[in-house]
């Protein structure tokens, strides 16, 4: 029975909270590193989103990504500041792209994408969404468009890196789930 002080938590809720906490920690750590160019950072927190997507599905990935942007911005202190809107636009675009990638993987059997391919499309969409808001809302100057190619190049490179990291973790999780001790974060 659920009571007022102890709400009923499903196993899924706990998993979402755990994954989101992990993603938030990476998000905050990454924000602490100085970046040579504004808007460029590795986006390793997205590896968590990818792992959740591939192990638990799109709905949970949406929760984890949303919680990360919200709580992450509260912790960094950028909530509702320009950076928050950029982050939100990027996260919205990338989770939408991941949704499309998810559909792609489910409805055709020939060319499924692993976390690497998904990570690349998510990273490019993230940058595109972020750039659209930066250009459309904050700095509508044509000179900004010259920044788009190098920013997208960075997104492509970091997308591959994050995807490779996610693939490595997924392989290890797979081994753990098959270990005799039983799954810790099994699907």
């Amino acid at each position, binding site marked *: 029975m659920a009571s007022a002080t102890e709400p009923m938590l499903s196993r899924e809720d706990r998993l979402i909270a755990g994954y989101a906490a992990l993603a938030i920690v990476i998000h905050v750590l990454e924000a602490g590193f100085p970046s040579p160019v504004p808007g460029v950072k590795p986006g390793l927190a997205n590896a968590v989103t990818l792992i959740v997507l591939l192990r638990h599905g799109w709905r949970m990935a949406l929760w984890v990504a949303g919680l990360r942007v919200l709580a992450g911005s509260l912790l960094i202190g950028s909530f509702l500041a320009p950076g928050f809107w950029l982050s939100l636009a990027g996260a919205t675009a990338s989770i939408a792209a991941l949704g499309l990638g998810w559909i792609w993987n489910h409805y055709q059997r020939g*060319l499924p*994408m692993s976390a*690497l*391919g*998904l990570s690349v499309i998510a990273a490019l969409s993230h940058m595109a969404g972020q750039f659209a808001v930066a250009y459309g809302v904050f700095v509508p100057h044509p000179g900004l468009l010259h920044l788009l190619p190098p920013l997208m*190049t960075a997104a*492509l490179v970091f997308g591959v890196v994050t995807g490779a990291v996610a693939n490595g973790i997924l392989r290890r999780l797979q081994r753990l789930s098959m270990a005799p001790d039983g799954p810790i974060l099994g699907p």
Partner: protein
Amino acid sequence: MTRGDLLAVAVAAILVGMLYARYWQPSVVADSFEVRSGGELIGRYSLAGNQLLPVNGRIGETLLEVRDGRVRFRSAPCRNQVCVHSGWLAHGGDVAACLPNRVSIRLIGDSRNALDGLSY
């Protein structure tokens, strides 16, 4: 890495390449320039030929110099001389301005003068 990943990376790389082609075009050589003083358009001048062009501004006379298809602020009555230090301008879209004297120039490049293509 699956073949689906390869496809995704290839499509992404092509997209990024297209962005470079679209936004990193070499700038177009200008053929003329507009001069403004106090916000009013004074005139549009050709970059062909050599000439000195005096322009009256708010605090005095600014001297523009056109030579070899380029234009520069040769002298200005202002203190900081930012416009003079802008140097020679030759590409479409280039701008230079003397804020104290309210004189600015903008170069106009016509894509008709750009190359249609290059082959090696």
